[in-house]
């Protein structure tokens, strides 16, 4: 029997949750069904590294109350996977063969970790690290095999957060990065170098310009991983291997649907896809990038939350529009806080100007990237005080001419900004300066 609902949401992470909340702001009655292949309540994927490292317990994985579904009157179907959508019939087919009808559909299926095909990749002890189940499997494997040596492929955010968790478990870690430095996507060389040397101080080996070409496992028993062989034939002992080279939008199941995709699902400013009444949000979609205006997959939490909200609003008849993805990451590694926002790579465009404070001995680096008198990016390492003010200046495209010389001074603040902008910022909603 076909189960019909006004709103159907595929996915259960932050885009889905924000979508539910957004729909309920305008439509208290319309039926909502949510489907997820994971069995968990609303848990936070970025917290898995905290869970693995023992910084938090499982009870703190949830970022919404456990009455979230009932309070929002959501029919949550957990542990079942959407395998096909039929936009003409307006139905979604699940892996158990059941069919769900919808008036408005939201796809927020997130990303799938990329695992390169190489000899030995199916050995026991090779993991990806994006879900709670991954974390449980890794933990179980570590305990069972008394793992003391790990290799992490990929020096991006996921790889480094995995590294940090493994270090907290007293496991020696070697990071392998194909680029010439860690955090190449979000950081510049100076920022990468500070974090790289901190990692080495705590006993973590960082190998760049290299990767794994082969995995050697024990010939007997559970065929557990023993070592990895690098591009340069060097062998590194590894009792566990975490593959963290990136994620790709999880959109395979949409192949037969006729939905337009590039890298991710193509969406407009309302987060609507090429199919009528079908919306998408989060890591599976390709929304407009804020600075360039071009579509781009930027798999970050705040964008997913905002996109889910915009999708929900429009699904419920609203007219909110998405202003664009701005890459932004905040991560503390080895006790050093870091924030990067917007355009941080200044090597590819001559017109970019940089103002910076660089004190590697104090683990401090603050860089502001400027184009045509407007801030377009920041990298802050070691001192992230008031970083959001700069994020706001990027988003609002504020001309910095009048406070340029002050921009990285210690007392830089709202007071440094032009009076009209400052008043505009703090006014509204009953607040005036």
């Amino acid at each position, binding site marked *: 029997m076909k189960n019909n609902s006004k709103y159907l949401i595929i996915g259960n992470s*932050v885009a889905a949750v*924000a979508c539910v909340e957004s729909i309920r702001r305008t439509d208290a009655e319309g039926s909502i069904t949510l489907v997820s292949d994971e069995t968990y309540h609303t848990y*936070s994927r*970025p*917290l898995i590294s*905290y869970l693995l490292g023992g*910084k*938090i317990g499982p009870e*703190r994985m*949830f*970022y*919404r109350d456990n009455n979230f579904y009932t309070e929002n009157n959501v029919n949550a179907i957990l542990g079942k996977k959407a395998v096909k959508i039929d936009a003409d019939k307006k139905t979604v087919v699940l892996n158990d063969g059941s069919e769900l009808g919808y008036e408005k559909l939201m796809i927020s299926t997130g990303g799938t970790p990329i695992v390169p095909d190489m000899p030995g990749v199916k050995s026991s002890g090779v993991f990806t690290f994006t879900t709670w189940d991954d974390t449980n499997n890794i933990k179980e494997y570590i305990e069972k095999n008394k793992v003391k040596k790990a290799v992490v492929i990929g020096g991006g955010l996921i790889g480094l957060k995995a590294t940090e968790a493994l270090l907290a478990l007293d496991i020696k870690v070697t990071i392998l990065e194909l680029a010439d430095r860690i955090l190449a996507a979000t950081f510049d060389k100076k920022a990468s170098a500070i974090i790289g040397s901190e990692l080495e101080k705590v006993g973590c080996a960082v190998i760049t310009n290299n990767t794994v070409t082969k995995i050697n496992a024990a010939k007997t028993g559970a065929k557990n991983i023993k070592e990895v062989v690098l591009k340069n034939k060097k062998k590194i002992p590894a009792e566990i291997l975490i593959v963290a080279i990136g994620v790709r939008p999880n959109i395979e199941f949409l192949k037969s649907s006729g939905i337009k995709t590039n890298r991710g699902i193509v969406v407009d400013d309302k987060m609507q896809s090429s199919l009528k009444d079908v919306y998408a949000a989060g890591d599976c979609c390709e929304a407009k990038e804020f600075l360039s205006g071009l579509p781009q997959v930027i798999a970050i*939490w*705040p964008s997913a*939350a*905002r996109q889910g*909200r915009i999708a929900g609003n429009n699904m419920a008849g609203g007219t909110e529009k998405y202003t664009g993805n701005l890459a*932004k*990451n*905040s*991560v*503390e590694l080895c006790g050093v*806080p870091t*924030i990067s*926002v917007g355009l941080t790579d200044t090597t590819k465009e001559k017109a970019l100007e940089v103002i910076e404070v660089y004190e590697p001995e104090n683990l401090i680096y603050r860089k502001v990237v400027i184009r045509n008198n407007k801030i377009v990016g920041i990298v802050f390492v070691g001192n*992230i*005080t*008031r*970083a*959001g*003010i700069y*994020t*706001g200046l990027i*988003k609002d495209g504020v001309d910095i001419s009048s406070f340029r010389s002050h921009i990285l001074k210690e*007392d830089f*603040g*709202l*007071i*440094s900004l032009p009076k009209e902008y400052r008043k505009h*910022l*703090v006014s*509204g*909603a*009953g*607040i*005036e*300066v």
Partner: protein
Amino acid sequence: MKKIVIREEYCIGCRLCEIHCLVQHSKSKEIIKAYKGEYPKPMSRVRVEQLHHLSFAMQCRHCEDAPCLEACLSGAMHRDKKTGAVLCDEDKCVGCWMCIMVCPFGVIERNTEGKKIASKCDLCTGQEKPVCVKNCPNEAIVYEE
């Protein structure tokens, strides 16, 4: 909801708001102990900005459309259902600093002496008026609907 309104033309830069805020958010609620004898050291959640003859006290605006709520990945940052205030549940906070990255007012700070948590104005939960407002000698911050 009631919010703190900033009136920069009245601020004399005395920073009494910072002192009262810090004491209010200490364990002892006594000024000497709060400043000299507590661990983790309490922090003021209001900041006086000063440039030449201009100054004003700045604390969380408890935005209607608060970017910190959206960016928070632990569920710590939440809106109080009764008062509408944006609050940080310090038990839930993991210190990821996403809120610091997105707050356009720069009014959330790292508190790292004890467990790492985001520190921000809570409008002095339980008090009739936030202590910064109550103790401002020149009504440079007022608490209004």
